[in-house]
């Protein structure tokens, strides 16, 4: 059984030898980010829910705990994770979810993973145990390092335990569908987001807009009357597919680009089918295409693009390049936590 002192010892030894470590638990996101560099450091055994008090809306879990297990426990108490992280066939873990920072369909309406991170315990690249944030909803003591770890892809150290805010499950939920082309779908998603509607997910592809509503019975009834559309059957399965990019046309063998754009951005002039989420702020573009051109276009619109998954990892990394000033700051931040560059080197940006 893995314990924290022995984990610290391994990290210290690796730091001394300048030997990179590749942090892994479920391995569900090996496809994501830059290359997997270094000796595997398996933290899957750091598993289990350490503390859950439903009336606090707070749960603490060891990093290797499977998301599916955590979500089952929350569901038993009528709660859930608001940001709907992808579970990737049940293998995804809490630590991996935080490290990747990925959020699902609810993100545009309920907030992102990092919004729900209250605290982390971690071991930095020097083998020191650190604890940031806590188990309370309001806490502004010290720099917010716990939220900084969200999306850092393990480059700042090994997450060992995470505290998340939970939310009550909505009392009612339904999904409506509308036959609309892409410009019309973008327009209504933008417009509806400005109204006090109980939106909890929007997804458009193949000429159909799917709108999920969650909340009080009365709110759902009123919104249905207001919006019209067709009631969708099997909606839970559909949103699970959206959440994990499993819709049929997003073929796993093919490249999949993830483009994040400001609200109200226009239709992208790319060929082929695509999936729109988050009211149009997130666009999934499959197929081989000129990534550099897509990144230039995304930047011009005020967003960014990444190669989310693909047959090969590009040498310059899958993420939108940073400005020289930001890259320099990233290097300095990395050096704060991992001065010897051993934790998940190259996973976020080459050399970081």
């Amino acid at each position, binding site marked *: 059984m893995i314990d924290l002192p022995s984990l610290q010892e391994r990290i210290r030894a690796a730091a001394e030898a300048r030997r990179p470590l590749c942090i892994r638990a479920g391995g569900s996101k090996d496809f994501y980010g830059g290359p997997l560099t270094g000796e595997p450091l398996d933290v899957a055994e750091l598993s289990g829910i350490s503390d859950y008090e439903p009336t606090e*809306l707070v749960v603490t879990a060891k990093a290797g705990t499977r998301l599916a297990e955590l979500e089952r426990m929350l569901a038993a108490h009528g709660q859930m994770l608001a940001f709907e992280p992808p579970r990737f066939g049940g293998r995804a873990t809490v630590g991996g979810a935080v490290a990747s920072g990925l959020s699902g369909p609810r993100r545009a309406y309920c907030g992102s993973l990092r919004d729900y991170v209250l605290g982390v315990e971690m071991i930095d690249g020097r083998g020191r145990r650190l604890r940031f944030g806590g*188990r309370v909803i309001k806490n*502004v003591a*010290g720099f*917010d*390092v716990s939220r900084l770890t969200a*999306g850092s892809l393990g480059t700042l150290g090994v997450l060992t335990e995470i505290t998340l805010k939970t939310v009550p499950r909505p009392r009612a939920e339904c999904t409506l569908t509308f036959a609309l082309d892409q410009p019309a779908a973008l327009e209504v998603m933008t417009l509806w987001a400005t109204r006090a509607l109980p939106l909890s997910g929007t997804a458009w592809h193949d000429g159909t807009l799917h709108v999920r509503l969650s909340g009080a019975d009365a709110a759902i009834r009123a919104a249905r009357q207001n919006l019209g559309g067709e009631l969708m059957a099997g909606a839970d399965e559909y949103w699970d597919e959206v959440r994990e990019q499993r819709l049929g046309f997003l073929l796993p063998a093919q490249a999949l680009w993830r483009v994040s754009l400001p609200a109200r951005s226009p239709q992208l002039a790319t060929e082929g089918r695509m999936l729109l989420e988050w009211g149009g702020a997130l666009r999934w573009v499959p197929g081989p295409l000129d990534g550099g051109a897509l990144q230039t276009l995304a930047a011009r619109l005020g967003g960014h693009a990444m190669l989310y998954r693909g047959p090969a990892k590009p040498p310059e990394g899958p993420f939108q390049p940073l400005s020289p000033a930001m890259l320099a700051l990233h290097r300095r931040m990395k050096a704060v936590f991992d001065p010897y560059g051993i934790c998940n080197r190259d996973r976020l940006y080459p050399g970081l």
Partner: protein
Amino acid sequence: MREVIDRLRRVLPAGAVLAGAEELKPYECDALMLYRQMPLAVALPGDEAQVASVLRTCHESGIPVIARGAGTGLSGGATPMPGAVLMSLARLNRIISLDPLARTARVQPGVRNLAISEAAAPHGLYYAPDPSSQIACTIGGNVAENSGGVHCLKYGLTVHNLLALRVVTIEGELLEIGASALDAPGYDLLALITGSEGLLAVITEVTVRLIPRPQCARVVLAAFDSLAKAGQAVADVIAAGIIPAGLELMDRPTIAAVEPFVRAGYPLDAEAILLCESDGTAHEVEEEILRIEAVMQRAGSTECRISRDEAERLRFWAGRKAAFPAMGAVSPDYYCMDGSIPRQRLAAVLQAIRAMEGKYGLRCTNVFHAGDGNLHPLILFDSNVPDEVARAEAFGGEILELCVREGGSITGEHGVGIEKINQMCVQFGSAELETFHAVKRAFDERGLLNPGKAVPTLHRCAEFGRLHVRGGQLPHAELPRF
């Protein structure tokens, strides 16, 4: 040192550098008035380029810089220090753009919090975080402190309502943090800078998220004959799957102090009252308010009233909003604390604070954000009585340390500043504090931005003598004990 004043006068327009004693006086403190200091000079840049010039000039001269918004902060984050330049962002006060369809506003840091919601109101939108000082406090200060408010249980803190920042480093370098999109590549520096109390960079532009204003809101006023029952009712509301728009508690002394002020009709015989607000569509609110009432009754509420109209809702809230000014009429001085704790520890912590009143010979009243466990004990004292200030500070310190022991934090929304810097040694161990200092150096190698605030030196913690002992290991083992 004074030559920096001449250098600042060369890079800023006429009248934008203050150095006379009379001119500096208004800047000697923020809303933590216990601490006053005169800065070397006050700089009043009018745009981002001037902000960068001030920072570059001070960096070259090795002069510390303290950024200030409206000076409404309660933890001394904007308290000047001798020999430092205080930079007021008050002149950067323009709403640059507001896009109702994208639901965003780009604003300069000196724009008042409430002014954003006022500008968004014609579009049915508003900016959700509402610190009680919202008519005066600026968005730049809100970002620096990660301010909360009455509605953050449902709508989040400042960090949850931001999209992007433009900031200038001490070296005068402009950085764009975050994006108008819902995420940005690289580390989440937006979260790191939010709440960094002016230690990492100076904010020159903020892009905030606006949300649709709820169609209606109603509030339940529930009275209880004991604090413990009121505390339990708070947990019961959450356990019932309700996230109220606001959930506030006032204790008996507060009720007694505010009622003559606002005539809200509060029950004067109650030990505590809860104000629990529901917002949303009319149907939604109707459904939720009945559920809230049922929970309150099951929790043993002695009296439960539901606001019948908007006027009554505002009257119920009037006392909560007037609580701090009303205390000013009851006591010559008061000291407002800001600890946060797990909700289930509310009753126990309130009892412990009662016991401390005897120990310090001072009264303490409680009015706070019960829904998110954020306490605001008000310690009443008279600064003209010898040693009452010291007793009030010691009392406050003990409350904060109790919050940490109960699994909470020394500050829920006011920030550490200079006020709670010693208690940082209780909440964090030396490895975390060292990490904070290293983060600071990654942005500001020479430590010129707001020095001496928010993060104590290890030496200071050793002197303070309240070291956080974790797992039996004595921290700061390398330092001598005093």
